[in-house]
């Protein structure tokens, strides 16, 4: 079972990476690009076979390690 953890900076927290990427895209001629936010994605191969259990486990991992709750929020999806 695969869990996909997406970690993004919380709203309101400065995202220098997103800012720079947006700027670079505008410079490349992509005028239609507005705000850009950059985050991390972590794909976990889990031994779990039950989707609900896998989700709980991955959320626990995100809280304990993968996301920094001071500045980041996360979401977990379970894929096949």
């Amino acid at each position: 079972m695969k869990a996909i953890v997406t970690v993004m900076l919380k709203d309101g927290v400065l995202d220098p990476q997103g800012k720079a990427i947006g700027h670079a895209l505008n410079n490349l001629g992509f005028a239609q690009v507005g705000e850009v936010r950059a985050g991390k994605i972590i794909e976990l191969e889990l031994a779990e076979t039950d989707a609900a259990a896998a989700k709980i486990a991955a959320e626990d991992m995100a809280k304990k390690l993968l996301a920094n709750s001071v500045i980041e929020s996360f979401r977990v999806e379970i894929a096949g």
Partner: protein
Amino acid sequence: MNKIVDAALAKSFGLNAEEYAKVLEIMGRLPSFTELGIFSVMWSEHCSYKSSKVWLKELPTTALWVIHGPGENAGVIDIGDGLAAIFKMESHNHPSFIEPYQGAATGVGGILRDVFTMGARPIANLNALRFGDPKLPVTKRVVDGVVRGIGGYGNCVGVPTVGGEVNFHPAYNGNPLVNAMTVGIARTDRIFLSAAAGIGNPVVYVGSKTGRDGIHGATMASTEFDANSAEKRPTVQVGDPFTEKLLIEACLELMQTDAIVAIQDMGAAGLTSSSVEMAGKGGVGIELTLDDVPQRETGMSAYEMMLSESQERMLLVIKPERSEIARAIIEKWDLDYAIIGKITDTGRIIIKHKGVVEADIPLAPLSDAAPLYHRPFVETPKPAALGPTEDPIGLAAGLLKLLACPDIASRSWIWDQYDSTVGGQTVKRPGAADAAIVRLEGTNRALALTTDCTPRYCAADAEAGGAQAVAEAWRNITATGGKPLAVTDNMNFGNPEKPEIMGQFAAAIKGMAAACIALDFPVVSGNVSLYNETEGKGILPTPAIGAVGVIEDASKAMGIALQAGLQLVVIGKTYGQLGQSLWLREVLGMEAGAPPSVDLKAERRNGDFVRGQILEGKVAACHDASDGGLLVAIAEMALAGNVGPSLNTLRSHDFWFGEDQARYVLAVPDAAALLAAAEAASVPAEHIGSAAGDSLTLPGGISISLPALRDAHEGFFRKWFA
């Protein structure tokens, strides 16, 4: 959003009843929400120095070479050749505990701005760090984050991180200290100050956009932590070193023109403190229209904009006819440039937003009537000297134990993560000498830079500890051949409302002042961080000292690396004082006794002698004896040069591990000549061994191979972070 303004709200902003009464008196009416916010941050401990100011006055701040002492963004000294060194140290303790990486990173960013805002190109960063018990998992997390944060910011902005210090002690478990120092260089005739002038001149905002970051950060830095701190924390500031790099280059380029009347970084309390201080210092008024402030978020209130601590921003007063030139330079560097107000003759700060006057405060009382406390204090009784001790494990085991202990272990794991060579001027990198040596580009001149403090001494005897910190900084510069010139300090203490903490503060200042006077080593800048307590437990008193010295001929800068064929001579008297020593703590498990005595006359005499010998070319390596005493100093020299010393004088453990001050280990080709010169100068000196093989041989014949020493020395961090 705008809550009812009353004493309860004032209290939640950190203003006590008396302070709030004073606000009412100054305003002559109920202040607005924004006005109360402005008072609360300006009168916070962090911005007003209300508990410490009366004591800071005791420090000597002048010398022939001091151009600007405390009171400006950073201290400025004349270093010859028409150049000035501009430097300061600042704490980011609370933010670094909440979010170690970003807290440390933004600490570096903040101190850089204090220096380049005065027109200096930053040429070196240092950092003084104190962490809790290494056995706790949280300590590891904090160390990792802080080191990565300092590196992440400093490496990216391209300022070499060349030195610092690290201590561990359980007293810092809930309250690590992150003190960052920046040193910059400017021409003495191109120094920029913050006093606003010129009625009608535009007030210009430069840098990153404003968000809701760190609102009330200055107030947070002025209170203790408790179990609920996590809830209270403001939005953490995230550092953007790339923007800082642009800001450095843009400001320095702008400073080549004559556009700037005054300039000030937006540090703690952001727009509030920068505008209030600039106008206040210039004796003028200031009017801001917040609608024109570049904003990252929508719907920000006046209160939020005035208190935001968004990073990488500067406030300038510009000559109106130069505004477009200034804009062109700033925008070339992809930074925001906005005229957000003007200088007035009202003596008031007026804040307008959406057509409403959100604040209108007379500036003079805002600063003059700021609370000033003569807080009650009690001095901690000085401990008695330590009695005689037995050595249960012998010199060899003692040495290995000390080399491996967290307070002495090699810091290479840390400095290997800091770019120490960028700029191409680093003559002595971390670990190579007692002070970092950075040449001034295009000259033969170099600066010698160090930070020092021994908190365990300060805890036992804050006066002796304060003096020792200054003396050690002076000694570290001296050991490189540098002439020590001036000091910046970072006073990290607990809750000043406790008389014993205020007693520590007062005693430390007293000791520092005595040492600064005796060593001609004035304090030109500094920072105070109080309320370093978690759940009522204070840190060790930590008056961190950052110091700058100069070497006219950089090629004479002395390192610690031993070379084969040299003789080892110790300069300065060894009494064998083991009180508060690391040997006592690591081997006998005791933190006891009086710290080593500080004899400032001996310090000066011995140091002047050593510097003279170095500059005359008589010395091949030099290292001061400090933490761990003589034997540790010799082992460090051996490891730096990869040459084994052989020691020839049979003495007991207190001789080898005592932490007596004012001592240096010199490696010289001609010991007899050095002893004669020392005698002529009435300086104690003793020949203790020579450098020869590939192991360290103790008197009596036991030897330890260099690889065994190295394993012990480098093991701690490597194993910890394996």
